[in-house]
């Protein structure tokens, strides 16, 4: 491998890594902030969408149509395109500071698309709860919303924790896409350092920082699942 030395020099330069690491860590704080404020919004909106879609009352038909359209449209367009459209488009209508910040609207775009994906995960969970559970709850006189809240949702959420965490890991990475409309988060900072050093090592540093978050997050999910299985002792084949 005659070119390995050159690759090593431009991607794995220890000195460049230690030089840029503090900048990268500092910029990563913004990634964490975006992740931290979009995640709860996504989860709440997604649960509401999934519940709306699982309603059965004929009178709520328009609501179901609306949320189906929402999830289809949000999932049908690449995330990056939504970030451009919403991130540049909405401030473009002439909002005052601080409401014209691409950071805010980029996060909103991210939240909108992810809530549609996560809603589908919740919906799959809701539908996986056997109809007999609903029958049992309704037979006790619980209303359909009480049945959803106490019987269906708790079981659905437990079942979708792994795919949900999968989406969260994915979101944690896609936060970097917001950099494309301006905010200096870790990916953009790595780009800046790359240009300054004429060396790609800052990107490797950024990758290491992402891994430091996403791997523990995945292990934590596994731990949660094991604990849940031990507690309820589900030895049955489902």
């Amino acid at each position, binding site marked *: 491998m005659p070119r390995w030395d050159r690759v090593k020099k431009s991607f794995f330069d220890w000195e460049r890594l230690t030089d840029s690491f503090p900048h990268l860590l500092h910029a990563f704080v913004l990634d964490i902030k975006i992740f931290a404020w979009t995640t709860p919004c996504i989860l709440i909106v997604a649960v509401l969408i999934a519940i709306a879609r699982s309603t059965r009352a004929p009178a709520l038909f328009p609501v179901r149509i609306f949320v189906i359209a929402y999830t289809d449209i949000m999932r049908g367009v690449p995330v990056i395109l939504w970030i451009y459209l919403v991130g540049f488009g909405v401030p473009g209508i002439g909002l005052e500071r601080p409401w014209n910040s691409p950071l805010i609207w980029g996060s909103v775009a991210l939240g909108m698309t992810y809530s549609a994906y996560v809603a589908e995960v919740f919906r799959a969970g809701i539908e996986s709860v056997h109809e007999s559970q609903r029958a*049992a709850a*309704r037979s*006790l006189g619980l209303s359909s919303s009480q049945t959803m809240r106490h019987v269906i949702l708790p*079981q659905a959420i437990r079942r979708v924790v792994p795919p949900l965490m999968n989406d969260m890991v994915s979101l944690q990475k896609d936060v970097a896409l917001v950099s494309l409309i301006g905010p200096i988060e870790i990916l953009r900072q790595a780009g800046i350092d790359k240009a300054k050093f004429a060396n790609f090592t800052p990107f490797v540093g950024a990758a290491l920082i992402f891994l430091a978050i996403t791997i523990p997050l995945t292990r934590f999910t596994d731990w949660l699942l094991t604990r849940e299985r031990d507690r309820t*002792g589900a030895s049955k084949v489902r």
Partner: protein
Amino acid sequence: MNAKLTLNSIAKSFGDNQVLRDISLTIETGEVVSFIGASGSGKTTLLRCINLLETVDNGSILLDNTEITAVGLDPNPIRRRIGIVFQSFNLFPHMSIRRNVTLALTEVLGMSVDAANETASSLLARFGLSEKIDSYPDRLSGGQQQRVAIARALALNPEVLLLDEITSALDPELVGEVLDVVRELKGSGITLLLATHEMGFAREISDRVCFLAEGVVAEMGQPEQIFSHPSDPRTQQFLQRVIAAGRLRG
């Protein structure tokens, strides 16, 4: 005696399959009535219609002379008065045994947590389940789960209890403990409707037995009459098959 439950010409189809054609019968307060018949004869569907889990296509059901199948009626207050126990138990797997029993008490009746817990403790003690009160359903045997399901339905103090083939999913050695609970309920004033394949038990416990065939009541009467002197040829044929299968002494 007064009629607790009156069924007038009940009909119910699922697609092209007409499960109930024309069922009319009256059940007295405190009476124990068993519904027998081949699989698919409509026993389960009939019980689910009475609990309003299914809507009838035709006919009406009266509880204490009030029509409960009227269009637009809120089913929830009625379901509190008519409990149901399912073949597959249908306990809530994410809740402790205690919470399974108290859920409807706190959420539907608005009882305080303490009062609900007390009700659950005494009911579960009555059925020999005190030790399991903090366990989760998956840790219990089938017989124990079904007894919890009965306790859960009884917690609301229903006037009518529907038992839908409650021993069909159990291992043979666990059937007895569940039937003992049902024996205990008889005579407590509650009206019991059973869909069952346990012919010996139906004969022993029932005030009346109703044989369903092809979506109608083929024959209904005292257990002795149905089991020893069936008049309808369909009943005779059914019982012969049951005896041949060793499920009833001839």
